[in-house]
Protein backbone atom coordinates (compact mmCIF):
# COMPACT_ATOMS: atom_id res chain seq x y z
CA UNK A 1 0.00 0.00 0.00
CA UNK A 2 1.12 3.52 -0.79
CA UNK A 3 2.86 4.87 2.31
CA UNK A 4 1.83 8.43 1.61
CA UNK A 5 -1.85 7.51 1.43
CA UNK A 6 -1.46 5.41 4.52
CA UNK A 7 -0.16 8.38 6.51
CA UNK A 8 -2.54 11.05 5.31
CA UNK A 9 -5.42 8.60 5.37
CA UNK A 10 -4.91 8.48 9.12
CA UNK A 11 -3.82 12.04 9.78
CA UNK A 12 -3.94 14.73 7.13
CA UNK A 13 -2.35 17.40 9.30
CA UNK A 14 1.26 16.87 8.30
CA UNK A 15 2.87 19.53 6.17
CA UNK A 16 4.40 18.55 2.85
CA UNK A 17 7.83 19.15 4.36
CA UNK A 18 7.09 16.76 7.21
CA UNK A 19 5.73 14.12 4.84
CA UNK A 20 8.80 14.54 2.66
CA UNK A 21 11.07 13.96 5.68
CA UNK A 22 9.13 10.94 6.88
CA UNK A 23 9.13 9.25 3.50
CA UNK A 24 12.59 10.32 2.40
CA UNK A 25 11.26 11.98 -0.75
CA UNK A 26 11.69 15.55 -2.03
CA UNK A 27 9.02 17.99 -1.00
CA UNK A 28 7.94 18.83 -4.54
CA UNK A 29 7.45 15.13 -5.25
CA UNK A 30 5.06 14.91 -2.28
CA UNK A 31 3.23 18.01 -3.44
CA UNK A 32 2.85 16.66 -6.98
CA UNK A 33 1.78 13.25 -5.74
CA UNK A 34 -0.95 14.70 -3.52
CA UNK A 35 -2.20 16.88 -6.36
CA UNK A 36 -2.25 13.84 -8.62
CA UNK A 37 -4.27 11.86 -6.07
CA UNK A 38 -6.70 14.75 -5.70
CA UNK A 39 -7.11 15.15 -9.44
CA UNK A 40 -7.67 11.46 -9.98
CA UNK A 41 -10.26 11.41 -7.22
CA UNK A 42 -8.17 9.05 -5.10
CA UNK A 43 -8.11 11.65 -2.35
CA UNK A 44 -11.69 12.85 -2.13
CA UNK A 45 -11.36 15.40 0.65
CA UNK A 46 -10.13 16.18 4.13
CA UNK A 47 -12.35 16.03 7.20
CA UNK A 48 -12.00 16.14 10.94
CA UNK A 49 -13.26 13.15 12.88
CA UNK A 50 -15.82 14.78 15.16
CA UNK A 51 -17.00 13.11 18.32
CA UNK A 52 -20.57 14.37 18.29
CA UNK A 53 -21.39 12.49 21.46
CA UNK A 54 -19.06 14.78 23.38
CA UNK A 55 -21.21 17.80 22.58
CA UNK A 56 -24.30 18.47 24.68
CA UNK A 57 -27.38 18.63 22.53
CA UNK A 58 -25.35 18.14 19.36
CA UNK A 59 -28.54 17.46 17.40
CA UNK A 60 -26.67 14.78 15.53
CA UNK A 61 -28.41 11.44 15.22
CA UNK A 62 -27.38 8.63 12.91
CA UNK A 63 -28.98 5.41 11.88
CA UNK A 64 -27.94 2.41 9.85
CA UNK A 65 -30.64 1.33 7.46
CA UNK A 66 -30.71 -2.06 5.82
CA UNK A 67 -32.24 -1.71 2.43
CA UNK A 68 -33.57 -4.51 0.27
CA UNK A 69 -34.18 -3.56 -3.32
CA UNK A 70 -35.01 -5.21 -6.60
CA UNK A 71 -32.16 -4.49 -8.97
CA UNK A 72 -33.19 -2.80 -12.20
CA UNK A 73 -32.86 -4.45 -15.53
CA UNK A 74 -29.76 -3.15 -17.40
CA UNK A 75 -28.45 -0.88 -14.66
CA UNK A 76 -28.50 -3.39 -11.78
CA UNK A 77 -27.86 -1.71 -8.46
CA UNK A 78 -26.22 1.38 -9.91
CA UNK A 79 -29.37 3.32 -10.58
CA UNK A 80 -30.76 2.51 -7.14
CA UNK A 81 -27.51 3.72 -5.62
CA UNK A 82 -27.69 6.96 -7.60
CA UNK A 83 -31.15 7.66 -6.27
CA UNK A 84 -30.30 6.90 -2.66
CA UNK A 85 -27.11 8.94 -2.78
CA UNK A 86 -28.95 11.98 -3.99
CA UNK A 87 -30.57 12.53 -0.57
CA UNK A 88 -28.47 14.85 1.51
CA UNK A 89 -29.55 12.91 4.63
CA UNK A 90 -27.52 9.95 3.35
CA UNK A 91 -24.07 10.10 4.85
CA UNK A 92 -22.69 6.82 3.51
CA UNK A 93 -23.96 4.16 1.18
CA UNK A 94 -22.54 0.69 0.67
CA UNK A 95 -23.58 -2.24 -1.48
CA UNK A 96 -23.46 -5.34 0.69
CA UNK A 97 -23.12 -9.06 0.32
CA UNK A 98 -25.61 -10.92 2.51
CA UNK A 99 -29.23 -10.74 3.51
CA UNK A 100 -29.81 -7.15 2.44
CA UNK A 101 -28.51 -5.10 -0.45
CA UNK A 102 -27.56 -1.63 0.71
CA UNK A 103 -26.32 -0.33 4.04
CA UNK A 104 -27.30 3.29 4.31
CA UNK A 105 -25.99 5.57 7.03
CA UNK A 106 -28.42 8.39 7.50
CA UNK A 107 -27.98 11.46 9.66
CA UNK A 108 -30.50 13.88 11.06
CA UNK A 109 -31.02 16.23 13.95
CA UNK A 110 -33.51 14.00 15.76
CA UNK A 111 -34.71 10.42 15.61
CA UNK A 112 -37.98 11.77 14.34
CA UNK A 113 -36.18 13.36 11.38
CA UNK A 114 -34.66 10.07 10.43
CA UNK A 115 -37.86 8.11 10.91
CA UNK A 116 -39.72 10.51 8.67
CA UNK A 117 -36.96 10.45 6.07
CA UNK A 118 -37.06 6.67 5.89
CA UNK A 119 -40.84 6.47 5.84
CA UNK A 120 -41.47 9.24 3.36
CA UNK A 121 -38.44 9.36 1.12
CA UNK A 122 -36.20 6.33 1.21
CA UNK A 123 -38.85 3.60 1.33
CA UNK A 124 -40.80 5.21 -1.46
CA UNK A 125 -37.97 5.08 -3.98
CA UNK A 126 -38.90 2.84 -6.88
CA UNK A 127 -37.46 -0.61 -6.41
CA UNK A 128 -37.08 -0.47 -2.62
CA UNK A 129 -38.62 -3.62 -1.17
CA UNK A 130 -38.04 -3.13 2.53
CA UNK A 131 -36.11 -1.13 5.11
CA UNK A 132 -34.93 -1.90 8.63
CA UNK A 133 -33.74 1.07 10.67
CA UNK A 134 -31.15 0.72 13.44
CA UNK A 135 -30.40 3.85 15.43
CA UNK A 136 -26.84 4.36 16.57
CA UNK A 137 -26.84 4.83 20.33
CA UNK A 138 -23.20 5.42 21.07
CA UNK A 139 -20.01 5.70 19.08
CA UNK A 140 -16.95 4.01 20.50
CA UNK A 141 -14.64 4.14 17.55
CA UNK A 142 -14.91 5.96 14.26
CA UNK A 143 -12.57 5.79 11.26
CA UNK A 144 -9.88 4.16 13.34
CA UNK A 145 -10.12 6.61 16.20
CA UNK A 146 -11.26 5.71 19.66
CA UNK A 147 -13.94 8.17 20.70
CA UNK A 148 -14.66 7.05 24.23
CA UNK A 149 -12.29 8.42 26.81
CA UNK A 150 -9.50 6.00 27.41
CA UNK A 151 -6.62 6.31 29.76
CA UNK A 152 -4.19 8.16 27.57
CA UNK A 153 -1.53 8.70 30.24
CA UNK A 154 1.84 7.20 29.32
CA UNK A 155 2.33 4.37 31.76
CA UNK A 156 5.94 3.77 30.80
CA UNK A 157 8.63 4.73 33.24
CA UNK A 158 12.11 6.03 32.60
CA UNK A 159 14.63 3.25 33.11
CA UNK A 160 18.14 4.56 33.57
Amino acid sequence: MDKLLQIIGTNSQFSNAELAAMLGEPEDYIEAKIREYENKGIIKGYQAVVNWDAIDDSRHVEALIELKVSPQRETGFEEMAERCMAFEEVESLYLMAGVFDFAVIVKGETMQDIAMFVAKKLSTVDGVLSTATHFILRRYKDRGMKLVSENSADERSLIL
Partner: protein
Amino acid sequence: MINYDKYLSQSIRSVSPSGIRRFFDIANEMDNVISLSIGEPDFQTPWHIRDEGIRSLEKGRTWYSPNRGFAELLKQITLYYERRFGLTYNPHEQAIVTVGGSEAIDLALRCLVEEGEEVIIPQPSFVCYEPLTVMAGGKPVIINTKNEDNFRLKAADLEAAITPKTKLLVLPFPNNPTGAIMEKNDLQEISEVIKRHDLLVLSDEIYSELTYGGRDHVSIASIDGMYERTVVINGFSKSYAMTGWRLGYALGPAPIIEQMTKLHQYGIMSAPTTAQYAAIEALKNGDRDVKHMRGEYDMRRRLVVDSFNDMGLSCFEPLGAFYVFPCIKSTGLDSEDFCKRLIMEKHVAVVPGSAFGKCGNGFVRVSYSYSLKHLKIALGRIREFVKELQDERNG
Protein backbone atom coordinates in the same frame (compact mmCIF):
# COMPACT_ATOMS: atom_id res chain seq x y z
CA MET B 1 22.23 4.26 65.32
CA ILE B 2 24.02 1.71 63.18
CA ASN B 3 26.43 2.96 60.58
CA TYR B 4 25.54 0.70 57.70
CA ASP B 5 28.47 1.84 55.61
CA LYS B 6 30.71 -0.54 57.49
CA TYR B 7 28.41 -3.44 56.62
CA LEU B 8 27.81 -2.63 52.98
CA SER B 9 30.21 -3.95 50.39
CA GLN B 10 32.79 -1.50 49.14
CA SER B 11 32.09 -2.36 45.52
CA ILE B 12 28.38 -1.59 45.57
CA ARG B 13 29.03 1.62 47.48
CA SER B 14 31.54 2.68 44.84
CA VAL B 15 28.87 2.44 42.18
CA SER B 16 27.29 5.86 41.77
CA PRO B 17 23.52 6.10 41.68
CA SER B 18 21.91 7.41 38.53
CA GLY B 19 22.04 11.18 38.99
CA ILE B 20 19.45 11.62 36.32
CA ARG B 21 16.78 10.13 38.53
CA ARG B 22 16.30 13.23 40.65
CA PHE B 23 15.93 15.36 37.60
CA PHE B 24 13.16 13.20 36.23
CA ASP B 25 11.44 13.02 39.56
CA ILE B 26 11.01 16.78 39.22
CA ALA B 27 9.64 16.30 35.71
CA ASN B 28 7.11 13.79 36.97
CA GLU B 29 5.66 16.32 39.38
CA MET B 30 5.09 18.97 36.73
CA ASP B 31 1.89 19.22 34.77
CA ASN B 32 1.69 19.21 31.03
CA VAL B 33 5.15 17.69 30.56
CA ILE B 34 5.57 16.05 27.21
CA SER B 35 8.29 13.47 27.27
CA LEU B 36 10.73 12.21 24.67
CA SER B 37 12.75 10.40 27.26
CA ILE B 38 11.36 6.88 27.39
CA GLY B 39 13.57 4.04 26.18
CA GLU B 40 11.02 1.38 25.38
CA PRO B 41 8.56 0.76 22.55
CA ASP B 42 5.30 2.70 22.67
CA PHE B 43 3.63 -0.26 20.98
CA GLN B 44 1.87 -2.79 23.12
CA THR B 45 2.95 -6.40 22.72
CA PRO B 46 1.11 -7.70 19.61
CA TRP B 47 -2.14 -9.35 20.62
CA HIS B 48 -1.39 -12.87 19.35
CA ILE B 49 1.72 -12.90 21.54
CA ARG B 50 -0.16 -11.67 24.61
CA ASP B 51 -2.84 -14.20 23.88
CA GLU B 52 -0.37 -17.09 24.06
CA GLY B 53 0.75 -15.83 27.46
CA ILE B 54 -2.86 -15.67 28.63
CA ARG B 55 -3.57 -19.12 27.23
CA SER B 56 -0.66 -20.63 29.09
CA LEU B 57 -2.10 -19.20 32.31
CA GLU B 58 -5.56 -20.51 31.48
CA LYS B 59 -4.06 -23.94 31.01
CA GLY B 60 -2.49 -23.65 34.41
CA ARG B 61 1.11 -23.61 33.20
CA THR B 62 2.33 -21.81 36.27
CA TRP B 63 5.41 -23.83 37.21
CA TYR B 64 9.12 -23.15 36.93
CA SER B 65 10.64 -23.76 33.55
CA PRO B 66 13.90 -25.70 33.15
CA ASN B 67 16.84 -23.54 34.29
CA ARG B 68 18.04 -22.69 30.82
CA GLY B 69 14.48 -22.12 29.55
CA PHE B 70 11.93 -24.26 27.72
CA ALA B 71 13.43 -26.49 25.04
CA GLU B 72 10.97 -25.19 22.45
CA LEU B 73 11.94 -21.59 23.15
CA LEU B 74 15.66 -22.38 22.97
CA LYS B 75 15.04 -24.11 19.67
CA GLN B 76 13.08 -21.15 18.29
CA ILE B 77 15.77 -18.72 19.43
CA THR B 78 18.49 -20.65 17.62
CA LEU B 79 16.34 -21.02 14.50
CA TYR B 80 15.73 -17.28 14.60
CA TYR B 81 19.44 -16.45 14.83
CA GLU B 82 20.12 -18.75 11.96
CA ARG B 83 17.47 -17.27 9.68
CA ARG B 84 18.10 -13.63 10.59
CA PHE B 85 21.85 -13.46 11.14
CA GLY B 86 23.21 -16.65 9.65
CA LEU B 87 24.56 -17.97 12.94
CA THR B 88 24.14 -21.55 14.05
CA TYR B 89 23.93 -22.38 17.74
CA ASN B 90 23.14 -25.67 19.40
CA PRO B 91 20.00 -25.11 21.51
CA HIS B 92 21.08 -27.83 23.94
CA GLU B 93 24.29 -26.19 25.08
CA GLN B 94 24.83 -22.82 23.47
CA ALA B 95 21.76 -20.89 24.57
CA ILE B 96 20.20 -19.69 27.81
CA VAL B 97 16.99 -17.77 28.48
CA THR B 98 17.34 -14.99 31.06
CA VAL B 99 15.35 -12.32 32.85
CA GLY B 100 15.80 -9.65 30.22
CA GLY B 101 18.98 -9.00 28.29
CA SER B 102 20.25 -7.28 31.44
CA GLU B 103 20.54 -10.49 33.40
CA ALA B 104 22.42 -12.09 30.54
CA ILE B 105 24.89 -9.18 30.56
CA ASP B 106 25.40 -9.57 34.28
CA LEU B 107 25.90 -13.33 33.98
CA ALA B 108 28.40 -13.01 31.18
CA LEU B 109 30.44 -10.38 32.98
CA ARG B 110 30.51 -12.34 36.22
CA CYS B 111 31.47 -15.55 34.45
CA LEU B 112 34.21 -14.03 32.34
CA VAL B 113 35.83 -11.31 34.38
CA GLU B 114 38.40 -11.95 37.10
CA GLU B 115 39.36 -9.53 39.84
CA GLY B 116 41.28 -6.62 38.34
CA GLU B 117 40.80 -7.57 34.71
CA GLU B 118 39.84 -4.84 32.34
CA VAL B 119 36.61 -4.59 30.41
CA ILE B 120 36.47 -2.14 27.53
CA ILE B 121 33.22 -0.23 27.29
CA PRO B 122 32.52 2.16 24.41
CA GLN B 123 30.49 5.19 25.47
CA PRO B 124 28.00 6.80 25.13
CA SER B 125 26.17 3.60 25.94
CA PHE B 126 23.52 2.18 28.21
CA VAL B 127 24.21 2.73 31.88
CA CYS B 128 24.52 -0.84 33.14
CA TYR B 129 27.87 -2.03 31.76
CA GLU B 130 30.12 -0.01 34.02
CA PRO B 131 28.45 -0.84 37.37
CA LEU B 132 28.04 -4.51 36.46
CA THR B 133 31.72 -4.71 35.52
CA VAL B 134 32.64 -3.21 38.87
CA MET B 135 30.42 -5.68 40.71
CA ALA B 136 32.05 -8.53 38.79
CA GLY B 137 35.42 -7.35 40.13
CA GLY B 138 36.55 -5.96 36.81
CA LYS B 139 37.90 -2.57 35.90
CA PRO B 140 35.91 -0.61 33.31
CA VAL B 141 38.01 1.06 30.62
CA ILE B 142 36.03 3.60 28.67
CA ILE B 143 36.41 4.37 24.98
CA ASN B 144 34.74 7.58 23.84
CA THR B 145 33.13 7.13 20.45
CA LYS B 146 32.86 10.31 18.44
CA ASN B 147 30.26 12.24 16.54
CA GLU B 148 32.59 12.52 13.52
CA ASP B 149 32.81 8.71 13.41
CA ASN B 150 29.01 8.49 13.61
CA PHE B 151 29.62 7.09 17.09
CA ARG B 152 31.02 3.85 15.71
CA LEU B 153 33.83 2.05 17.49
CA LYS B 154 37.09 2.50 15.58
CA ALA B 155 39.83 -0.11 15.53
CA ALA B 156 42.53 2.42 16.40
CA ASP B 157 40.66 3.58 19.51
CA LEU B 158 40.17 0.00 20.57
CA GLU B 159 43.81 -0.82 20.03
CA ALA B 160 44.82 2.17 22.15
CA ALA B 161 42.65 1.06 25.06
CA ILE B 162 44.05 -2.46 25.28
CA THR B 163 46.50 -3.40 28.04
CA PRO B 164 47.83 -6.78 29.17
CA LYS B 165 44.92 -6.87 31.62
CA THR B 166 42.20 -6.49 29.01
CA LYS B 167 39.81 -9.43 28.91
CA LEU B 168 36.61 -8.39 27.27
CA LEU B 169 35.06 -5.84 24.95
CA VAL B 170 31.44 -4.82 25.43
CA LEU B 171 29.95 -4.09 22.03
CA PRO B 172 26.63 -2.24 22.39
CA PHE B 173 25.33 -1.83 18.84
CA PRO B 174 22.79 -0.78 17.59
CA ASN B 175 23.46 1.73 20.28
CA ASN B 176 21.39 3.31 22.99
CA PRO B 177 21.61 6.38 23.21
CA THR B 178 23.27 7.36 19.92
CA GLY B 179 21.39 5.17 17.45
CA ALA B 180 24.75 4.24 15.89
CA ILE B 181 25.26 0.88 14.23
CA MET B 182 28.36 -1.10 13.26
CA GLU B 183 28.44 -2.34 9.69
CA LYS B 184 30.27 -5.38 8.46
CA ASN B 185 33.48 -3.58 7.51
CA ASP B 186 33.54 -1.76 10.88
CA LEU B 187 33.23 -5.12 12.62
CA GLN B 188 35.93 -6.68 10.44
CA GLU B 189 38.34 -3.94 11.40
CA ILE B 190 37.83 -4.28 15.14
CA SER B 191 37.77 -8.07 14.89
CA GLU B 192 41.38 -8.06 13.69
CA VAL B 193 42.38 -6.20 16.85
CA ILE B 194 40.30 -8.46 19.08
CA LYS B 195 41.83 -11.63 17.65
CA ARG B 196 45.33 -10.25 17.76
CA HIS B 197 44.99 -9.48 21.47
CA ASP B 198 43.05 -12.65 22.26
CA LEU B 199 40.00 -10.86 23.69
CA LEU B 200 36.39 -11.90 24.09
CA VAL B 201 33.33 -9.87 23.09
CA LEU B 202 30.03 -9.36 24.81
CA SER B 203 27.81 -8.25 21.94
CA ASP B 204 24.62 -6.60 23.19
CA GLU B 205 22.31 -6.90 20.21
CA ILE B 206 19.03 -6.02 21.91
CA TYR B 207 18.18 -3.49 19.17
CA SER B 208 19.14 -5.83 16.33
CA GLU B 209 15.69 -5.71 14.72
CA LEU B 210 15.67 -1.93 14.67
CA THR B 211 18.03 -0.89 11.90
CA TYR B 212 17.12 1.36 9.00
CA GLY B 213 18.17 2.52 5.59
CA GLY B 214 18.33 -1.04 4.27
CA ARG B 215 21.15 -1.95 6.60
CA ASP B 216 20.40 -5.22 8.32
CA HIS B 217 22.09 -5.81 11.63
CA VAL B 218 25.32 -7.78 11.41
CA SER B 219 26.45 -9.72 14.46
CA ILE B 220 30.15 -9.67 15.20
CA ALA B 221 29.85 -13.42 15.81
CA SER B 222 29.40 -13.83 12.07
CA ILE B 223 32.80 -12.31 11.32
CA ASP B 224 35.55 -14.79 10.58
CA GLY B 225 37.09 -16.20 13.75
CA MET B 226 34.74 -14.29 16.07
CA TYR B 227 32.03 -16.89 16.66
CA GLU B 228 34.15 -18.64 19.26
CA ARG B 229 35.03 -15.35 20.96
CA THR B 230 31.57 -13.83 21.25
CA VAL B 231 28.73 -14.02 23.71
CA VAL B 232 25.65 -12.62 21.98
CA ILE B 233 23.00 -10.96 24.15
CA ASN B 234 19.52 -10.37 22.83
CA GLY B 235 15.93 -10.41 23.99
CA PHE B 236 12.31 -9.76 23.24
CA SER B 237 11.85 -6.31 24.75
CA LYS B 238 12.69 -4.11 21.81
CA SER B 239 11.92 -6.33 18.81
CA TYR B 240 8.51 -7.48 19.96
CA ALA B 241 7.60 -4.66 22.35
CA MET B 242 7.81 -7.03 25.31
CA THR B 243 9.77 -5.01 27.88
CA GLY B 244 7.53 -5.83 30.81
CA TRP B 245 7.70 -9.58 30.19
CA ARG B 246 11.37 -9.48 31.18
CA LEU B 247 12.82 -11.98 28.77
CA GLY B 248 16.22 -12.10 27.15
CA TYR B 249 18.82 -14.64 26.17
CA ALA B 250 22.47 -15.29 25.56
CA LEU B 251 24.09 -17.37 22.81
CA GLY B 252 27.72 -18.37 22.79
CA PRO B 253 30.39 -21.01 23.19
CA ALA B 254 29.12 -23.99 25.21
CA PRO B 255 31.67 -23.74 28.05
CA ILE B 256 30.70 -20.11 28.70
CA ILE B 257 26.95 -20.80 28.58
CA GLU B 258 27.50 -23.73 30.92
CA GLN B 259 29.02 -21.47 33.59
CA MET B 260 26.40 -18.77 33.02
CA THR B 261 23.73 -21.40 33.53
CA LYS B 262 25.13 -22.23 36.97
CA LEU B 263 25.02 -18.62 38.06
CA HIS B 264 21.52 -18.19 36.63
CA GLN B 265 20.37 -21.39 38.29
CA TYR B 266 21.49 -20.32 41.75
CA GLY B 267 20.61 -16.65 41.47
CA ILE B 268 17.40 -16.67 39.46
CA MET B 269 16.34 -20.32 38.98
CA SER B 270 14.51 -19.74 35.72
CA ALA B 271 13.02 -16.97 33.59
CA PRO B 272 9.26 -16.28 33.87
CA THR B 273 7.22 -19.17 32.51
CA THR B 274 4.33 -17.13 31.08
CA ALA B 275 6.73 -14.87 29.23
CA GLN B 276 8.46 -17.85 27.68
CA TYR B 277 5.23 -19.18 26.19
CA ALA B 278 4.51 -15.76 24.75
CA ALA B 279 8.05 -15.53 23.37
CA ILE B 280 7.71 -18.83 21.50
CA GLU B 281 4.72 -17.34 19.69
CA ALA B 282 6.69 -14.15 19.00
CA LEU B 283 9.51 -16.04 17.31
CA LYS B 284 7.19 -18.31 15.37
CA ASN B 285 4.68 -15.76 14.10
CA GLY B 286 6.00 -12.32 14.94
CA ASP B 287 8.02 -11.39 11.83
CA ARG B 288 5.20 -9.27 10.45
CA ASP B 289 4.84 -7.33 13.67
CA VAL B 290 8.55 -6.60 13.74
CA LYS B 291 8.44 -5.35 10.18
CA HIS B 292 5.44 -3.16 10.87
CA MET B 293 6.98 -1.57 13.96
CA ARG B 294 10.29 -1.02 12.19
CA GLY B 295 8.46 0.81 9.40
CA GLU B 296 6.69 3.07 11.88
CA TYR B 297 9.90 3.85 13.77
CA ASP B 298 11.66 4.60 10.51
CA MET B 299 9.11 7.25 9.54
CA ARG B 300 9.40 8.90 12.92
CA ARG B 301 13.18 8.72 12.78
CA ARG B 302 13.28 10.61 9.51
CA LEU B 303 10.89 13.24 10.78
CA VAL B 304 12.83 13.78 14.00
CA VAL B 305 16.31 13.88 12.41
CA ASP B 306 15.06 16.29 9.78
CA SER B 307 13.46 18.55 12.40
CA PHE B 308 16.60 18.76 14.53
CA ASN B 309 18.84 19.57 11.60
CA ASP B 310 16.31 22.12 10.43
CA MET B 311 16.18 23.87 13.80
CA GLY B 312 19.96 24.11 13.83
CA LEU B 313 20.87 21.28 16.20
CA SER B 314 23.05 19.09 14.04
CA CYS B 315 22.16 15.47 14.18
CA PHE B 316 23.99 12.62 12.47
CA GLU B 317 21.70 10.07 10.89
CA PRO B 318 21.16 7.28 13.39
CA LEU B 319 20.65 3.94 11.65
CA GLY B 320 19.56 1.90 14.64
CA ALA B 321 17.47 1.68 17.82
CA PHE B 322 14.85 4.41 18.38
CA TYR B 323 16.91 7.36 19.50
CA VAL B 324 18.42 10.40 17.90
CA PHE B 325 21.39 12.09 19.51
CA PRO B 326 21.50 15.72 18.41
CA CYS B 327 24.45 17.92 19.29
CA ILE B 328 23.40 20.90 21.40
CA LYS B 329 26.80 22.58 21.69
CA SER B 330 25.69 25.42 19.40
CA THR B 331 23.29 26.59 22.12
CA GLY B 332 26.19 27.28 24.48
CA LEU B 333 24.59 25.09 27.16
CA ASP B 334 25.84 21.78 28.48
CA SER B 335 23.58 18.74 28.32
CA GLU B 336 22.16 19.00 31.80
CA ASP B 337 21.44 22.72 31.63
CA PHE B 338 19.84 22.29 28.24
CA CYS B 339 17.57 19.55 29.57
CA LYS B 340 16.73 21.41 32.77
CA ARG B 341 15.82 24.59 30.97
CA LEU B 342 13.89 22.71 28.30
CA ILE B 343 11.79 21.04 30.92
CA MET B 344 11.26 24.17 33.00
CA GLU B 345 10.58 26.50 30.09
CA LYS B 346 8.87 24.28 27.55
CA HIS B 347 7.84 21.25 29.59
CA VAL B 348 9.61 18.82 27.29
CA ALA B 349 11.72 16.04 28.80
CA VAL B 350 14.76 14.62 27.00
CA VAL B 351 17.76 12.88 28.55
CA PRO B 352 21.16 14.59 28.85
CA GLY B 353 23.76 12.75 26.80
CA SER B 354 26.06 12.89 29.81
CA ALA B 355 23.87 10.27 31.50
CA PHE B 356 25.46 7.75 29.13
CA GLY B 357 29.08 8.64 29.78
CA LYS B 358 31.06 11.85 30.09
CA CYS B 359 31.62 12.02 26.35
CA GLY B 360 27.85 12.31 25.90
CA ASN B 361 28.02 15.85 27.20
CA GLY B 362 27.04 18.29 24.48
CA PHE B 363 24.35 15.92 23.23
CA VAL B 364 20.87 14.90 24.27
CA ARG B 365 19.06 11.63 23.79
CA VAL B 366 15.70 12.00 22.15
CA SER B 367 13.51 8.94 21.94
CA TYR B 368 11.15 8.65 19.00
CA SER B 369 9.25 5.82 20.54
CA TYR B 370 6.14 8.00 20.52
CA SER B 371 3.23 8.62 18.19
CA LEU B 372 3.80 11.03 15.30
CA LYS B 373 1.26 13.39 16.82
CA HIS B 374 3.13 13.45 20.12
CA LEU B 375 6.47 13.93 18.34
CA LYS B 376 5.14 16.86 16.34
CA ILE B 377 4.02 18.74 19.43
CA ALA B 378 7.26 18.06 21.29
CA LEU B 379 9.45 19.03 18.32
CA GLY B 380 7.48 22.25 17.95
CA ARG B 381 8.26 23.16 21.54
CA ILE B 382 11.94 22.30 21.19
CA ARG B 383 12.09 24.47 18.09
CA GLU B 384 10.68 27.42 20.05
CA PHE B 385 13.18 26.78 22.82
CA VAL B 386 16.17 26.71 20.48
CA LYS B 387 14.96 29.90 18.81
CA GLU B 388 14.65 31.64 22.19
CA LEU B 389 18.14 30.52 23.18
CA GLN B 390 19.47 31.98 19.95
CA ASP B 391 17.70 35.29 20.53
CA GLU B 392 19.08 35.33 24.05
CA ARG B 393 22.63 34.83 22.81
CA ASN B 394 22.27 37.47 20.15
CA GLY B 395 21.10 39.85 22.89
